[in-house]
C-alpha cells in the first residue's frame, strides 16, 4: 500500500469539491492510503506574476513541511504539481534564492528541505496503482463510450522539469481510460490550454479558448471528456453554459468528468460517492448509458 500526503491546493477545497470527494473515495479502494495535509494551503502558482519569489516561498514552505512528515506528496491539481516540482528545480539550481527562502522560512520556525517526492493523480493511478490493477477492479466497464482525455497544460509542460506525461504524446491518461473500457482517440490540440489562467484578464477570451477545445472534441466524435485539473474542470464543466452563450453555439455541450470520477464509476461506486451531482455538464448522458442514476 502506497501512502501519500493529500495535497489539495486552493481550488479543490474551496469550490471544486467533486474532485476531493471522488479522490477520497476512489484512491483508498485502489490501495492508496491518503494522509490529510491541511497545513499546506496555496502553492503560490496563481501569484507568481505578482512576485515570483513569493511563489517560491509558498511552495518551498509546503515542500519543507511535507519533508518533515517524511511522506511523498500527491498533488491533485496540475498547477500545484507543476508548482512544487518547478520550485524544487529552482531551489536546486539557484543558491542565492535558496538562502533567501531558507531565511524567510526560518523566521517561522521551518527548516528549508525540498527533498520530497511529488506525484500527480495521473502518476498515482498509472504508475503506482497500475493499469492491470485498475482493469482487475472494473465492474462497470465504460464500454462504447468515446472519451476525450484532456490532460491540461501543466500536466505536460514546462518540460524542463519532470512532468507526468510527455508534451507531444500524452499516453498515460488514455491508457487509464482504456483500462476502464472506454474508447479513446486522437483529436487536435489534446495538449492545449483551457484558458483558465486568462480568466482574471478577460473571461470572454478565456471562454473562446475553451470553446475551441470542446469543438475539437465534438468534431472528432467524442461523447465525453475527462481531466485531472480543477482549473480545466472549472472551464470545461462549470462554465460550459457561459461558454455556449459567449460563442453562441448550442452544440458545444459535452459531459465532463474528473478522471477519479470515471475510475470510481467503473469500479462500481455510486454517483454521490463521486460528487457527480456537483458536475454542471450533462454527465447524465453517460450515466444513462451505463444504466446508473445520478440520484443513487
Amino acid at each position, binding site marked *: 500500500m502506497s501512502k501519500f500526503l493529500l495535497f489539495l491546493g*486552493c*481550488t479543490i*477545497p*474551496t*469550490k471544486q*469539491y467533486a474532485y476531493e*470527494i471522488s479522490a*477520497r473515495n476512489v484512491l483508498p479502494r485502489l490501495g492508496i492510503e491518503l494522509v*490529510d495535509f*491541511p*497545513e*499546506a*494551503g*496555496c502553492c*503560490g502558482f*496563481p*501569484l*507568481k*506574476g*505578482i*512576485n*515570483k*519569489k*513569493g511563489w517560491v*516561498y*509558498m511552495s518551498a*514552505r509546503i515542500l519543507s513541511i511535507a519533508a518533515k512528515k517524511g511522506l511523498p506528496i500527491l498533488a491533485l491539481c496540475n498547477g500545484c504539481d507543476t508548482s512544487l516540482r518547478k520550485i524544487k528545480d529552482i531551489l536546486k*539550481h*539557484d543558491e542565492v534564492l535558496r538562502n533567501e527562502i531558507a531565511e*524567510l522560512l526560518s*523566521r*517561522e*520556525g521551518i527548516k528549508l528541505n525540498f527533498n520530497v517526492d511529488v506525484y500527480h493523480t495521473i502518476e498515482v493511478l498509472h504508475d503506482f496503482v497500475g493499469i492491470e490493477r485498475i482493469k482487475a477492479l472494473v465492474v462497470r466497464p465504460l464500454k462504447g463510450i468515446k472519451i476525450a482525455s484532456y490532460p491540461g*497544460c*501543466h500536466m505536460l*509542460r*514546462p*518540460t*524542463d522539469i519532470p512532468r507526468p506525461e510527455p*508534451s507531444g504524446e500524452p499516453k498515460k491518461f488514455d491508457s487509464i481510460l482504456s483500462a476502464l473500457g472506454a474508447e479513446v482517440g486522437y483529436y487536435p490540440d489534446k495538449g*492545449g*490550454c483551457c*484558458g*483558465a*489562467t*486568462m*480568466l*482574471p*484578464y*478577460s473571461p470572454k*477570451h*478565456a471562454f*473562446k*479558448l475553451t470553446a*475551441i477545445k470542446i469543438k475539437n472534441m465534438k468534431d472528432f466524435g467524442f461523447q465525453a471528456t475527462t481531466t485531472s485539473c480543477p482549473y480545466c474542470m472549472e472551464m470545461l464543466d462549470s462554465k460550459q453554459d457561459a461558454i455556449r452563450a459567449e460563442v453562441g453555439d448550442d452544440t458545444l455541450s459535452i459531459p465532463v468528468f474528473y478522471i477519479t470520477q470515471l475510475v470510481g464509476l467503473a469500479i462500481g461506486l455510486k454517483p454521490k460517492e463521486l*460528487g457527480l*451531482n*456537483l*458536475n*454542471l455538464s450533462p454527465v447524465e448522458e453517460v450515466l444513462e448509458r451505463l444504466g446508473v442514476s445520478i440520484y443513487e
Partner: protein
Amino acid sequence: MSLDVRLIDKKILEDVIELVKPHTPQYCYQCAKCTSACSTSKVLPEYKPHLIVALTRLGLIKELLNSGIIWACSECWKCAEYCPQNVAPVEVVIALKNLAIAMGYKPPEDLKVMAKNVIELGYISPPIEVLSKEFEMYSRTTLELPPLIKPYINTEAVNNLRKLFGGVL
C-alpha cells in the same frame, strides 16, 4: 511610429535576464514560433509573445505595461516548449509582470483579490457554497468534507506573505 535608438533601455533586459535565468531572451531570432503556438494569441491576436520578447530586448516595455496585455498570458507554456532558442517567452512575461508590480502598476482586480485572500486565509479564495444542476446549495459541511484550517497561523508567516504580496493591495 518611429523609434529613437536613444530610448533603448538595457537595464530592463538585465532585470528580466536575472528573473528568467537560465533562459536567455537575447538568443531570440524572431522566428515567432512562440506566437504560432500561443494559446492566448488564438483568441486575442494582439497578444504576441515574440513581440514582447523583441520589445523587452530593447527595454521598450512601457506600452506593454500600460496596456496591461502581459496579464493576458494563459501560462500554457507552449511558447517555452517549442522555442528553438530556449528563450521561454512565458518566463519573460512573468518577469515583466513582476517588474510591473515593482514599478507600481496594478494587476487585474481578481488577482488582487487572490493575493488578499492568500494573505488572510492561505487560499486564493474562501470555501464557497456551490450550486448544483438541481439548484441545491452544497458546502464542505453539507458534503461532509473535513473543515479547512488556516495554514498560515504563525505571525512571521503572515508577515512574510504580506511582505511578498502586500504591495498590490
